[in-house]
Structures are given as C-alpha cells and as structure tokens.
C-alpha cells in the first residue's frame, strides 16, 4: 500500500480551504477513513490533500426543531449523542460503522460526500429528510441530500464546494426511527441496509447497498426498483435482504414511536 506522491496543505479557514481546492485534482481530507484507503490503492491520486479537520465545522446541536450536525463530527460523537425522540437511528447507525478506530476518526460529512453506494448513514439521513448547507466562494446554498447523491462515488457538489452543515428536521412528537443492515462479512458495508422514520401520520424508509446510491423507497415499495447484485450477493438475494431489513427497521421504528 504505497500511495502516489501528493502534497499536503492544512486549511486555516473555510475560505482558504475553498481556495486550495481550486487546484486541479485537489481533495479535501477530514478523518481520512475513505480517502486514505483509496489513495493507498492508488485509486485516488490527488495533487494535494487539503486538510480541513481543524475547521470549525464540528458539533451536534438541536435548535428550533432542527438538528444541526457539523460535517466534521465523528461517528464516535454521533454514537454517543443523546438526541430527541425520533432521531434514534442516527446514534444507532453511527455505532455500527467500522470499528472503534474508524469511528474515532471518520466523519459524517466525509462519508456523505464520498457517496459510497453502500454507506450506512446516508440512508438514515434520507429517511429523516436531511438537507445540506453547502459553501463555495460564490456564497452559500442549501440542498436536499437526495439531490446531492447522484451515483456511485459521485455527488452533485462542485470541486470547490464544502458541506458546512447537515440539517435534520426533528420529527414530531410520537415518532421513532431505526437503522438495520446486513453487512458484507469482509468490508462491513451494507449488503442491504434500511432506515425507517415512523411519524404519527406517515413514514419514510430509505435503503442502501442495493442501488447506485442510497435512496428513499418509493410509496409502492421496492417491487419496481432495480436492485444491484454482485459476485457475493446476487440481485435476487439482495432484493430479499432489502425486504427483510426494511421490515425490521420499520418494526423497530414503530416500537420506538410507541414507546
């Protein structure tokens, strides 16, 4: 595992980070849990890695019915967070990601923009209806997560844009959420994962690991949706798994909404 030569720059401010990211093939690095492995395999060969880990984009805060998660917040912090009822899926999902070392370094923002089609937390954020605050040198914009995830390892974000806030509406009273997955025994990524939000008057379910991106399950269910298969788990098996994890996540979220 010998990465290609690369330069390193630590951003002291958001503006400086955006400027540094203007160089062709620059890559932002926060916890490095996704970027470093692909660099070691030379799948990624950034000209410069822009270290944004010292920026003040960190923390978990609920205010005025909205949860704000700084993109540099680690899985370990999310796993330990005590959040309002209805947001249970966030710590539950964070706790199941990677191992202790990965959770201590890996960040939610890094995971979202890495856009791994089998990553866990994006499914939770989709079910909860999360939106992203995005900053570029032209200013700030807000976008839904759904619009950002466009394909495997591909987002609609520009190379000189950084996520500055992950915004999750706190579900109304009497809601519950849950995340359930079946993992690939080697990678730990979801063969199929499902996040469910059950509110008093409606529910929303998102799945991961079964398509090009994590996605919200349409009202009619997964029946008409194409499911991806691979060498380890066929599309037929994955479809079955998706059904199982959706039902389990829904049941768990329902139980929490009642409790």
């Amino acid at each position: 595992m010998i990465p290609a030569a690369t330069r390193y720059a630590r951003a002291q401010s958001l503006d400086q980070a955006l400027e540094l990211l203007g160089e062709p093939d620059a890559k932002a690095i926060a916890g490095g849990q996704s970027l470093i492995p692909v660099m070691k395999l030379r799948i990624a060969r950034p000209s410069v890695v822009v270290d944004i880990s010292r920026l003040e984009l960190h923390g978990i805060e609920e205010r005025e019915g909205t949860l704000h998660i700084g993109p540099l917040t680690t899985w370990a912090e999310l796993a330990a967070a005590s959040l309002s009822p209805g947001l249970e899926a966030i710590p539950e999902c964070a706790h199941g990601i990677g191992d202790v070392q990965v959770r201590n370094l890996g960040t939610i923002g890094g995971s979202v923009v890495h856009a791994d089609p089998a990553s866990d937390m994006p499914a939770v954020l989709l079910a909860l209806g999360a939106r992203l605050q995005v900053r570029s040198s032209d200013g700030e914009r807000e976008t839904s997560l759904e619009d950002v995830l466009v394909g495997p390892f591909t987002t609609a974000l520009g190379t000189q844009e950084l996520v500055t806030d992950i915004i999750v509406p706190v579900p109304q009273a009497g809601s519950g959420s849950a995340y359930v997955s079946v993992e690939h025994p080697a990678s730990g990524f979801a063969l199929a994962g499902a996040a469910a939000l059950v509110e008093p008057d409606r529910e929303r379910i998102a799945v991961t690991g079964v398509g090009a991106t994590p996605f919200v399950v349409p009202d009619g269910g997964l029946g008409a949706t194409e499911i991806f298969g691979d060498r380890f788990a066929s599309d037929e098996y994955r479809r079955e798994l998706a059904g199982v994890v959706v039902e389990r996540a829904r049941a768990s979220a329902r139980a929490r909404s009642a409790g």
Partner: protein
Amino acid sequence: MSELIGVARPRVDAPDKVSGSTRFAADGYVHGLLHARPVLATEAHARIREIDPQAALAIPGVVAVLTAADLPIASPGTDRTSEPLAREEVVFAGQPVALVIAETEAAAQDGAELVLVDYEALPAVVDVEAAMAPGAALARTVEESDDEAGDLESIHAGVDHGQADDPQEELSGNVLDRITRERGDLAAAFAASASVVEGTFRTPWVHQAYLEPQVCTAWLEPSGTLVVSASTQGSFVTRNGLARVYDLPLDRIRVIAEPIGGSFGGKLSLVEPLACGAALALKRPVRLTLTRSEDFAATNPASAQVTHLKVGARADGTFTAIEGRMIVDRGTNAGWGAEGISSSLVTGPYRWEAYEIHAYGVQTNRFTFGAYRAPGAPTAAFALESLLDELASALGLDPIEMRLRNAVVEGDPGMSGNPLPTMGAVEVLERIREHPLWAQRDALPVDEAVGMAAGHWPGGTEPAAAVCRVDSDGSMTVVTSAADMSGVNSGFAVIAAAAFGLSPDKVRVVTADTSFGPYSGASGGSKVTYTVGAAVLRAAEAAREKVLNAASQELEIAPDDLEVVDGVVRAVGSPDRSISVEEIAKKALRFGGRYEPIEGHGGSAQTSGAPSVAAHLSHVRVDRETGEVTLLRHVIAQDVGRALNPALVEGQMRGGAVQGMGWALFEELTHDEDGRLQTGSFLDYAIPTAERVPEIETLIVEVPAPDGPFGAKGIGEAPVVGAPAAIANAVAAAIGTRLYELPLTAPRVWKALRS
C-alpha cells in the same frame, strides 16, 4: 523441578511485542538499502513476449528493472525458489514477472506501474475437475523436473505417500500425482452395512491471512556472504534452497529467522529468492515487503479441494467401509500437494474394516499451493465428519456415542499398517460428551443448534539440536534455530528451567541464524515442541551435569547426591549444604577458572510421531430470513500430551478453532473464469474478526506422549481440523438441510433454505 510444568505464564516474547519494541524483518535499518516492488502478472496463463522497462527506468530513483534473466539463477526449476520471476511462461495471475528496484519504495512503485509486459494469452485452466480430463488444456506447457517435492511435504507431516494409483485411469497431464490407499474387502464391508451415506464436498482456496505480509531483506557482506533477514518459518530450509538456486556454498549464506508476525505454514522461501536475487544482481542491500494485495495475489494459500466420500456402518454404529475420491487443486505447485496428507487423514481417528481412497494432485492456473495449518486436514474432516453425522442420524444413534465406538486407541493399525502410537481420541470425545452444552442441545430455541466433530493431526518429526548456556549471573540462555512460532520459545524456557533446576524467568531463549545455530528444521507440522523441545531438554540436562560435577568438587559430595532447585545446587536431604549456580558459573567463567563452562548440547531424533486429537462443540443460530450464521459458543477438547504452559496451549486451541471458523463461515479466494483473483483484499476476503468470534471454552486433555519432553506433543494443527465440520454440523442441525460447500456464507445458507 517438574512442578514448573503446567503453570500458566506469559509468553517470553510478549513484553516486546505488546510494547512495540520487537524488530520485525521490515524494521531493521540497513545502510544503502534499496527497495524492490514486484510487477505481478495480470494474466493467469500466458507467454511473455516482451517486458519493456524503459518508462520505469526513467523514473527518478529507479535503479533497475530486473526480469528472470537478470537473476543469477544456476539451477532453474518450476518451484517458487527456482523460478522467483516467471521466465517465458506465466502460470497464474499474480505471479511475479519483474522487480523494480529503487532508492525509495514510492519510486519503485511508480516504476512498477510503468513496466510494460506484452503477453500472449494461453488457455487458463481454472476448473480443477475439467483439468483432469484427457485432452484438457495444460496449465503449464513447459515441463521441468522438480527436486523440492519430498522436502517440503515432510516439513508438514510425517505421512507416507501411499501407493501409485491405477495407471489404467486415463487422465490429462495436469494430474501430477495419483495416490491409492486401500485395505480390506470394500464391497463386502459396504454389503455388511445397515446404512451407507455419501456426498461431494467442496472447499475453496483459503489464505493464511497472517498479520505481517511476506518480507525479506538481503545484502552482501564485504566478504561476499549473503545475509538474509526474513520472516520465515525455516532458516535452514531457506538457506539450502537459496544455495541450490544461486549456486552458493552453504557457508556463504546466513539466514536470520526474524520474529514472525504470523505465518501458519505460508512463509517458506517465497520472497527470499526475489530479494536475494536482486541483492546478488545489484550488489546492494534490497528489501521486498509485499503489500496486502500483493500478498493475496502472489503467495501460496491452501488448496481448493473436491472430496467425494461414501461411508457405511452396521446398525450398532460400527464403521464398515469408507471410499473416497479426493481432488486437490495444487495450482502451479509441481513439487507437492495436500493430496498425500489429506488422503491419509480422511479416515479420521477411527477404525474401518475396509477403505479405498483415491487422491489426485492437479495443476491449474491458480496461485501456488502452500501449507496452511494442518494442510489437507480440515477439508478431509469436513467431508468425513459431515457424513458421520448423516450416518448417526440414519441409524438413530448419538453422534458422539457412535464415534466413540469406533475411535482408535494405541496399537490399532494406522494407514501405514504400523500400530498407532497413543492418542486421546476416546478421551476428547468423552470430554465433550460430558459438557453441559451437549446435553442441552435438544432444549435450544428454534433456529439454534449444537454440532460436534473431531479431527486429528499425526504430528511431524525431524532431528534437531539445542544448546543451553549458563552465564556468570546464574541465568541461562537457550539457543535453537527454530523460528519462534506459536510460542515455542516460551515452551523451551520452561523445559530448560525444569530440566536444569532454574526459575523460568532466569531463562531466555534466542533464535540463532544458520551461521552458528544448532540444526533445526522449519517450524511446522506440529513438531517443534516435540522434537526441538526434546533437544532442549537434553541440552539442559547436559548443562546440569556440568554444574553438578563442579558443585560436587566444591561441596565434596558425589554428584548423584546433589540436586538443583531454583538455581541452587544442594545435597539431597541436607539443603543447607549448598552452592548457587551463579557462584559456580562465576568460578568457571573467569581467567584461571577450574570448571568447564556450564553449557550443554542436546539433540533429538524422534522416530515415533505424537498425534493429537481435538473434538469440538459448536453452538450456532441461523437467521432464516437472511441466511446469516451467528456463532454463539464454541467448546474444544484437545489431547495435548502435557500442557507445558496451559496459557499458551489454550491460545493454540483458540487460534485453531478461530481459523476453523474462518474455513466454516468466511474465507474464500475466488477467481473469475479467466483465472483473475476476485477477492484480493480484506474488503472482499472475510476473516473471523473479534466481533464474530464467540466465547471459546478450552478443555485440556492430557494423554502424555511417551517420547515428548515431559510428555508434551505438538499441538498447533489439531485444533483447526475438526472445527469447520463441527460448525457445519451445527448449521445442518439448525436448518434441517446440509450444505456441501464451504464457507457457509449467508447467501449460500439462504439459498439452501429455499431449495
């Protein structure tokens, strides 16, 4: 001081390893070191038309691009020592075809990406059964003789190689070895059976997955001596291979067996010929450290195997006949395969009225077969022990009772026809029968079950020697050349301490290199404690004799009336008449001293093996909706002869059980139809990680080995053998249907539940 035996103590190497101060083979500082990076074949079978190094050589820091012709090989062959880089023919995807040597590892890697290899593709032989058919394409078109065969097989097990098979059966040139083992009237024995069951069992290629990838550093001393610092299981076997291939006198090669970060059979002369060839060609120090992906692609994992077995028993459970056809995929290993060992172990630790086993070693374009903890044994036990459960079920018998009825005891004829030495097959089966988990198996929640299985390993032998030396502070240094695997050095310390009469914390053990160390074979085959340990025992006794003679003169008491206890020589019955070992050593080790140095040399040449047997209970839960198998609990009972250090023995039992869990549920190297590896990283290749391994209960059973030091025997391999079968039997009991292919992945179990 035999009360020192059987006490749990920390490993002697633990403090350095835990604190990170152990220097492994990749850590040593060497002035002027160059780094090698391999170029691995992208084709499974091809002729090399041309290798173009120009773009690589243009990278700053790149010193050389070496191909097979650049290595000073004097004795070409087709084994990995003789052909470290492919010559004209590539025989598996991942085979090293060139080395890029540079001042930094990064520059070497940049260069390795730019080496252009022009291949002419040849048919890739990837289906081992199809490869046997007459007229099948050959996995290697250039045939060369091989002289390493017997050597490497004998490292791993003391089994005879059976008879040559029936030459009537027409098979392709890919079939490199045919073995028949038969005794008794098979047809009559089957005819006398109340039940006969059969099945075809498949197991995949499985990697040793050691923590430390393969690594070697080599340099030439100004005198011309080649020094080899390696993560190897065998310093002498490595030296001898290098001497043969590079035509060097034995005394011009010094192999240092550095501390090993795991090996399990896989570290024997794979990267050493590469690093040494480069060092000899360039006359500069060269280090080659494989990356994890390269280690998956380019090394020597355990063979895939297809085992068809048919077994019968009388109504009372007495075994009658066993018939087998075993096909072992050797990959590109023309020297040896697991078929010899696997066919000798497939009858299990049981008596049979008749058997007829045919085994085949077949070449394909996948990897190079290598040893992995009990080579050929877990695969054989998976087939046999699965069918024994089917047999018990068909006959309405308790699976343990049925096995006990047939378990071998000392004096029963072994495969070779000679009487078997003592082994605790009955004892370990009785231990798991008494375990509460076995009694509870019918009262478990739905989707949970308990399975059992047994497995054995014959135990290897090889002459060995050791030296024990007492210093002027009264401490002892034990010198052997056995690579320290699985805690053998910790065992030597206790053996020497007990035999001499010292506290074990006064004993340190060093691993000598081949230039001065006493002889030892490769660490493997569950033979080191049994053979090198016996040499250490004799060396310590010889040193003790020296100290007794000196003390006899000091105390004016006959040596026979003296004893050595905790570093003090004293008169038997009058402990106040004494002199410390330290005092005697101080008198000996000085100018004008009067006594011989307190040093002893000891050797051993064991002639009888010391087989070890283990029996397992596995408690599993199956998720019927997803097919996932969860291991809830595992119990292993093993005959260890005598547990010199129970903490280490239990560690071996747990480690073996865990690697068995890998065989059972997780591990599988797969290739696409063109022979390219699909599972070449830990993202794809699953191993039993801590979160998936359940509590493992270890039950030590002691049936002393008559010739072992203090009754100890080699115990490293037996614990893996029956573990996969026990888990498979538990899964079969949980879901009511049996899977005949490992590993029992969730998709496979799910599919079985639906068919």
